[in-house]
């Protein structure tokens, strides 16, 4: 199997879908000629292959970019547009939340809006809080949207293909921390269904529900705990909306213990939803308090020691797990 990064996996998904379907086009800031043409970036090389009619470098105009997707999709195109950094989701949010998500409902089911908004996200690259702010919980609170947030390159490829083929608007969050490290990705044309979580590591003692870049943190913690005889089940949500409730409940039924791990700040984060689900539908199986390991409630700071303090790590996860397992 090929060893590629998540950036490259996304690139492959985009290229393959564009070859397959002429109605797919891309738009966004710097997605054609970029300021650093790195081959691991998601849109690298696509302008060259597909030309400027299908790879639209846009002005710095997030609302218009999102609206472009809404309008183009209702006429049957399949736009894939990019929000360069998650904090700029705010600028596109009226179009995404009040339009993409609601116009089908408002039409009484007559129209559909098959669009994808790719949002680059994640802290850890020293750009500060106006470039780093994980807001997947915002999108997941908006009925009419689907919300995907892959944690591996292979998932990213299969999920992005599903997103592009989906007839509903999909917000697809890509943690930039995953753009640079290679892992195994199938070469063929495969899809991974939206709305299905994945047990990335089976375990008996505790369930860790996580998504996106934090998957790596979960693995590190699980490996360390395993040496101490604690077996962690890692459930990668992959999709936040629609939420795979079954998978969460089933895992908690099995382990009786739940820790939720996400990079976004704690209060109001999507971890609350998972905890609420467990506290209702898996209540009788819970043997211990439900823990959340998240960023603290602060903006993402710049200076390296501060930023590292912000990002949840395996030590914090191990501590949380031990607090309920031991």
């Amino acid at each position: 199997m090929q060893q590629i990064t998540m950036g490259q996996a996304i690139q492959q998904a985009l290229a393959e879908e564009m070859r397959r379907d002429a109605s797919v086009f891309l738009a966004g800031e710097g997605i054609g000629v970029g300021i650093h043409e790195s081959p691991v970036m998601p849109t690298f090389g696509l302008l060259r292959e597909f030309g400027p009619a299908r790879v639209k470098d846009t002005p710095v105009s997030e609302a218009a970019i999102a609206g472009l997707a809404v309008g183009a999709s209702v006429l049957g195109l399949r736009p894939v547009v990019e929000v360069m950094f998650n904090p700029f989701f705010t600028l596109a949010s009226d179009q995404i939340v009040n339009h993409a998500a609601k116009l089908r409902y408002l039409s009484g089911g007559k129209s559909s809006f098959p669009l994808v908004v790719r949002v680059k996200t994640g802290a850890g690259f020293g750009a500060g809080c106006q470039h780093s702010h994980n807001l997947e919980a915002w999108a997941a609170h908006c009925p009419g949207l689907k919300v995907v947030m892959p944690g591996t390159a292979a998932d990213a490829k299969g999920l992005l293909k599903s997103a592009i083929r989906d007839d509903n608007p999909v917000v697809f969050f890509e943690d930039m921390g995953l753009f640079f490290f290679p892992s195994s990705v199938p070469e063929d044309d495969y899809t991974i269904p939206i709305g299905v979580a994945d047990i990335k590591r089976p375990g008996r003692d505790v369930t860790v529900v996580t998504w996106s870049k934090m998957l790596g943190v979960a693995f590190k913690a699980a490996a360390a705990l395993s040496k101490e005889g604690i077996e962690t089940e890692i459930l990668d949500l992959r999709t936040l909306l629609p939420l795979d409730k079954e998978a969460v409940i089933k895992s908690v039924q099995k382990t009786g213990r739940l820790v939720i791990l996400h990079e976004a700040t704690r209060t109001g984060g999507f971890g609350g939803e998972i905890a609420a689900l467990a506290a209702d539908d898996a209540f009788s199986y819970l043997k211990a308090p439900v823990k959340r390991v998240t960023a603290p409630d602060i903006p993402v700071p710049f200076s390296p020691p501060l930023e590292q303090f912000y990002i949840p790590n395996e030590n914090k996860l191990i501590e949380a797990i031990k607090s309920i397992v031991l």
Partner: protein
Amino acid sequence: MVQEKLMLYQNMLFIRRFEEKLTELCKIEGKLPGMVILCTGQEAVAAGVCGALEKEDVIISNHRSHGHLLAKGADANALMAEIFGKVTGCNKGKSGTLHIAVPEVNALCTTTVVGGGIPIAVGTAFAQQYKKSKAVTVCFFGDGSADEGSFHESLNMAALWDLPVIFVCENNVYSGAQRMEEHTKVKDIALRAQGYGMPGVVVDGNDAEAVLKATAEARERCLAGEGPTLIECKTYRWRGHGEADHQAYQPKDEIAMWMERCPIKKIEKELLSEGVISREDITALEDSIAIIVEDAVRFAEESPLPDPEEALDDVYI
């Protein structure tokens, strides 16, 4: 041309009577749910613009949509039923008067977020260009909406890419209770077109023929690949922002002055003096319109409300 003029007259009169009926219904406590927002006095814009369009052309409308939708050919029964919140409405009662979409006539998106439709029009025009279809998009919005950031981003992008879109600013002097001079320092919204490198045109928004002509020219430019045009139609809102508005801030003599300049009376007078129609023709037309409007109301009234659980449908495909 005579045919065209007659068509404009008929369309405007129909819009007027349709909305007058709504004004009436609004006075009956509990008859119509929600806010009702009318375009009475502005019919020449809807009729004139849509008069220059083909069926495949797309319109993107706003909160003041009834005129646009009817002029584009929307079914009066389904429209009325939607306003009543009935299951037979264009959108099964999910939308109501504020965001009625009528995809059957390519009225694809109506949004009540001020300025929210403008980026979407860029999108539909992009699709038209991408597919090389011989169709254009018209986007309707008010003078107030031209202050939203979305207006700016959209016009810049549309001009940059020579998209086949016509931006129709219906300048009815007010944005809510605010007069034009209270929300911007410029006299003409059309002036802004220069800042994007597209033509900006001011037309008499109470002259349906002038509106039609300006739209037809802009449409030609679109289809010739010459890109978008901003058309500002100067007109006036006879009624309040919505039917609940008491219009305390609108000077009585200003309203009277504009009622003198009624777009329907103007064209009616011309058609009469040109001998195209007679008084009897008008009566006959009025009668037939009255029947259609009454039918629409009956249809709406007799239609059932949706079942509560239907609220759960149509979120996803």
